[in-house]
C-alpha cells in the first residue's frame, strides 16, 4: 500500500510540476560565483524566528541561514513523500511499531560562529517546536500531538518517541520552518532568534535593512562540499507587485519565490522572451471563507450552507485562473494528494454540486426557511490582491445571485488578524497555506479553536475532533482516506463550518540564467538556495 502511494505521489508530482525551464539539465555543470538577487513580496518578516512565524516573509528571508533535520528532496521538491536528510546521516526506519524514530546526526556541521553542531542542539530545537516552554510560541506545536519525547542520548543521536504511530509524523518533521538553533543560545535567551540570525546553513547572515533587504554571504564551512554555488544572496522586500515585476524586467532581481499572477507572467514572457523561464505548480494553499458561528444568523447551519451553495466553484475556477493565482476546485485536502477527494466525491458535498441552478435554488430555500432572505453582512478581507481580493470580489457577486447583499471591508494584515482573533467579523476570506504536503495535519485548520488556535470560526464540535483523532491514528491508507472523507463531509457539508474555495496555482517566472532551483507545491519549501547557481 505504501509503495502504491509512493508511485501515486511520484506520478502526481510529475504532473503537478511543469515547465521544465530553469531546471538543471543533467549535462549542466553548476557554475560557482555571483550573487542571486530575489524579491520578497512583503515589507519584511514579523520576526526571524521560524518556530514562531507562519509567513513566507520569514522563510524567504532566513531559510538560507539555517539547517533542518530532514527535508523534501531539493532535487524533487514536487514530491509529497521524497524526504532526505539535511542534518541527519540517513533516513531511519521506525522501530517499536512505528513509535520510535532514531536519527544519527552529521558530525561535520559547524555553526556560523565556528562551534560544532551536535545532536543536543537538534533535540533542544525540536523540543521548542513540539512543546515550547512558557512564554514561547511554536506555530506548529499542534502538528506534533503524536510526539511524546525528543531526546539526545549522545552528541550524535536524536530520538523521537511517539505516543502513537501515524503517517503524519515524517512529513511534519520535514517542516521548512523547523530551523535548528544553537542550544546554548536558546537556553540563555529563548527569544534571541526572533531578532537575530545564527545558523549552520549554506549562507552566513550579512545584514538586514528594515523594509529594504536581507543579505547573506557564502558559508565556506558548509557541510555539503561544493555548495553553495553562489557567493551571496540578496532578498529585496517589495510588497507592490508592480515593483517586483519592474525589478525582474530590468534585471535588478532575478525572481521571486512566492508566485506571480498569470497577467504578470504573460507580461514578462512577452517582454523578455527566452530571457525568462516559467515554472508552475499546484499550490498547497487554498482560500477558505470562515463564518463566525457566534454572529447571528450564522449560528444557523442553514445559513452557512446557503452561503456555500450560492458559489459556483466549477465555473469560477477556470475563469479566475486567468486573472488570479487560483486554479483548482478542491475539498479540505490539497488536490494533488492521494488523500484528496475525487471530483465525483466532491460533487456530493454542499457547495460543489455540479448543477449550480439547483444549488442556488436550495440556497434561496434555506435562506427563506431561516428567515433571512436578502440579508446584508460584511465580508472582511486581507489587503493583498493575489488572490484574496479577487476571491472576495468573486464570492460577493456569487452571493448576490441568491439575494445576499455583501459589503467588503479590506484591511491590512494586522487588523485582519485582529478581526479574526477577536471574533469581530461576520464572514472573512482567509487561506490555509501549508508547507510540506501533509493532509492529516493540514486539515487541522478546520478543527475548533480549542484544538487548533489558528481556527477562527468560533465553534466547538466534539464529533469533528473525534473523527480527526481516529484519522491521525489510522495507518491503513484506505481506512485513512475513508476517515478523511467523513471529516470533510462533516466540516463542509453537515455543519458547513467553513467554505473551501479555490486552491491556488503557483507561477514562478525567473531569469533564465537562474539554475538549480525547482518549484514545489509550497512556497515555504526548498528555500535554502544551496543548490542554486547562475549561468552567466
Amino acid at each position: 500500500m505504501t509503495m502504491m502511494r509512493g508511485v501515486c505521489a511520484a506520478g502526481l508530482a510529475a504532473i503537478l510540476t511543469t515547465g521544465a525551464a530553469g531546471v538543471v539539465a543533467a549535462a549542466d555543470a553548476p557554475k560557482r560565483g555571483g550573487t542571486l538577487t530575489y524579491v520578497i513580496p512583503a515589507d519584511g518578516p514579523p520576526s526571524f524566528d521560524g518556530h514562531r512565524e507562519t509567513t513566507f516573509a520569514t522563510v524567504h528571508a532566513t531559510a538560507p541561514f539555517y539547517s533542518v533535520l530532514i527535508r523534501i528532496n531539493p532535487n524533487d521538491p514536487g514530491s509529497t513523500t521524497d524526504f532526505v536528510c539535511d542534518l541527519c546521516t540517513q533516513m531511519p526506519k521506525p522501530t517499536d511499531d512505528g513509535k520510535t524514530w532514531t536519527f544519527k546526526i552529521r558530525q561535520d556541521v559547524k555553526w556560523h560562529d565556528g562551534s560544532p553542531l551536535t545532536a543536543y542542539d537538534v533535540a533542544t530545537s525540536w523540543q521548542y517546536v513540539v512543546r515550547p516552554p512558557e512564554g514561547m510560541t511554536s506555530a506548529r506545536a499542534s502538528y506534533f500531538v503524536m510526539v511524546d519525547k525528543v531526546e539526545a542520548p549522545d552528541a550524535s543521536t536524536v530520538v523521537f518517541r511517539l505516543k502513537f504511530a501515524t503517517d503524519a509524523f515524517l512529513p511534519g518533521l520535514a517542516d521548512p520552518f523547523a530551523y535548528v538553533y544553537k542550544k546554548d543560545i536558546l537556553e540563555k535567551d529563548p527569544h534571541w532568534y526572533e531578532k537575530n540570525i545564527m545558523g549552520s546553513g549554506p549562507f552566513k547572515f550579512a545584514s538586514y535593512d528594515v523594509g529594504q533587504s536581507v543579505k547573506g554571504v557564502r558559508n565556506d564551512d558548509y557541510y555539503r562540499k561544493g555548495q553553495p554555488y553562489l557567493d551571496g544572496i540578496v532578498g529585496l522586500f517589495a510588497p507592490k507587485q508592480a515593483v517586483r515585476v519592474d525589478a525582474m524586467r530590468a534585471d535588478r532581481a532575478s525572481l521571486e519565490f512566492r508566485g506571480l499572477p498569470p497577467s504578470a507572467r504573460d507580461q514578462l514572457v512577452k517582454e523578455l522572451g527566452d530571457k525568462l523561464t516559467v515554472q508552475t505548480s499546484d499550490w498547497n494553499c487554498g482560500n477558505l471563507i470562515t463564518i463566525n458561528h457566534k454572529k447571528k444568523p450564522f449560528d444557523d447551519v442553514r445559513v452557512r450552507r446557503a452561503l456555500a451553495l450560492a458559489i459556483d466553484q466549477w465555473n469560477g475556477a477556470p475563469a479566475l485562473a486567468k486573472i488570479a493565482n487560483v486554479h483548482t476546485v478542491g475539498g479540505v485536502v490539497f488536490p494533488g494528494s492521494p488523500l484528496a477527494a475525487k471530483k465525483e466525491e466532491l460533487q456530493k458535498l454542499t457547495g460543489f454540486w455540479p448543477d449550480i441552478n439547483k444549488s442556488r435554488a436550495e440556497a434561496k430555500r434555506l435562506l427563506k426557511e431561516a428567515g433571512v432572505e436578502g440579508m446584508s453582512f460584511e465580508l472582511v478581507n486581507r489587503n493583498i490582491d493575489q488572490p484574496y481580493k479577487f476571491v472576495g470580489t468573486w464570492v460577493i457577486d456569487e452571493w448576490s445571485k441568491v439575494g445576499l447583499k455583501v459589503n467588503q471591508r479590506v484591511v491590512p494584515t494586522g487588523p485582519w488578524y485582529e478581526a479574526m482573533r477577536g471574533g469581530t467579523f461576520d464572514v472573512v476570506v482567509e487561506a490555509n497555506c501549508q508547507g510540506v504536503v501533509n493532509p492529516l495535519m493540514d486539515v487541522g485548520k478546520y478543527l475548533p479553536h480549542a484544538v487548533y488556535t489558528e481556527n477562527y470560526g468560533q465553534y466547538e464540535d466534539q464529533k469533528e475532533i473525534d473523527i480527526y483523532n481516529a484519522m491521525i491514528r489510522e495507518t491503513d491508507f484506505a481506512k485513512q482516506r475513508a476517515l478523511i472523507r467523513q471529516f470533510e463531509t462533516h466540516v463542509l457539508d453537515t455543519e458547513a463550518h467553513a467554505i473551501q474555495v479555490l486552491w491556488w496555482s503557483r507561477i514562478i517566472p525567473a531569469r533564465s540564467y537562474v539554475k538549480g532551483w525547482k518549484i514545489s507545491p509550497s512556497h515555504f519549501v526548498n528555500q535554502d538556495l544551496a543548490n542554486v547557481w547562475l549561468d552567466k
Partner: protein
Amino acid sequence: MSPSDTTLPISAIDDDAPETRRSILERSLLFCRRQPLGTFGLALCIVMLIAGLGAEWLAPYSPTANDFSAMTEPPSWAHLLGTDQFGRDLLSRIIYGARTALIVGFSCAIVGGFVGLVLGVGSAYFGGRIDAWLQRVFDVLMAFPLIIMALAVVAIFGTGVQNVIVAITVPLVPRCARVVRSSALSIREVPYVDAARACGFGHVRIIMRHMVPNVMAPFLILITAFVGQAILAEASLSYLGLGVQEPVAAWGLMLQGGAEEYASTAPWIAVFPGLAIALTVFGISLYGDALRDVLDPKMRDR
C-alpha cells in the same frame, strides 16, 4: 462731495443694474457667452451629475455583475468601453462611479465647507484667544498635505465610503476656514457691523445676517474647488486601496484594478476611468474659475 467724485461709481452701478434684472435664462446665456471655458466645464459637470443621478437608467449593465464569458474585452458594440478583468462592463461602472464621486465630492465639499465657514467667520468675529487657538489648530492641520491627512484619517477609521468622506472632509475644514476668515476680518471692521453691535444685536444675528452673506462669494468658489479636490482625493485613496472597496464602482478603484496588471494587455481598463477622473476635475476647475470671474468684482472689472 463733488459731482466728479460720484461719476465713476454711478457708471459702475449702471453697468451692473440691468444684469440683476435679467431673467435666469438671459443671465445663463450671458455667462455662456462671456465664459466659454466655464460653460464647457459646467457641461462636463452636468454630464457627470446626470450620470450619477440616473445611473440605474443609463447604465447598460449591472456595475457589479461578473461575466466570465467577456473578461478583458476591448471596446465593442456590446460593451462600448470594453470590460474589466471580471467581465464587468466599464461604461456601466464609470456611470455608477460618477455617483460615488458625486456623493463623496459634494458631501466633503458641503460639510467641510460649512464647518469651515462657521469656524472661519466665528474665528474672525470673536478674535482674541478663540481666533488664536483656532488658527494654531488650523496651522497644524494644514501642515499636512490633503492626501496625507486623509490617509491618516482612513488609517484610524478604516476604509469605506463614509470613512472616506470623513477622511477628506477633515483636511478641507481648515482650508475653507482660513480663506473665509480673511474675508470676514475685513467685514468685521465695517461700520454696519459696528452699528449692529451698537443696536444690541446678538452674535448669531450679526454673524448670520451681516457677515456670512458677505463672504459667500469666496465661499462658493471654494466649494466648487473642494468638489474637484474631494473627487481627486477619493480616487487617490481608492487607488491606494484605502478608499471605496470592491465591488462598489469607483473611478480610483477601477484605476487601481487595471493600471498595475493590465496597462499593457488591456489598457482600456485604466484609460477610461482615468479619463473620467481627469474630465470631471477639469470641468469643475473650469467652472470654478469662471464662477470666480463672475462673482469677484475685481476679476469682473478686468
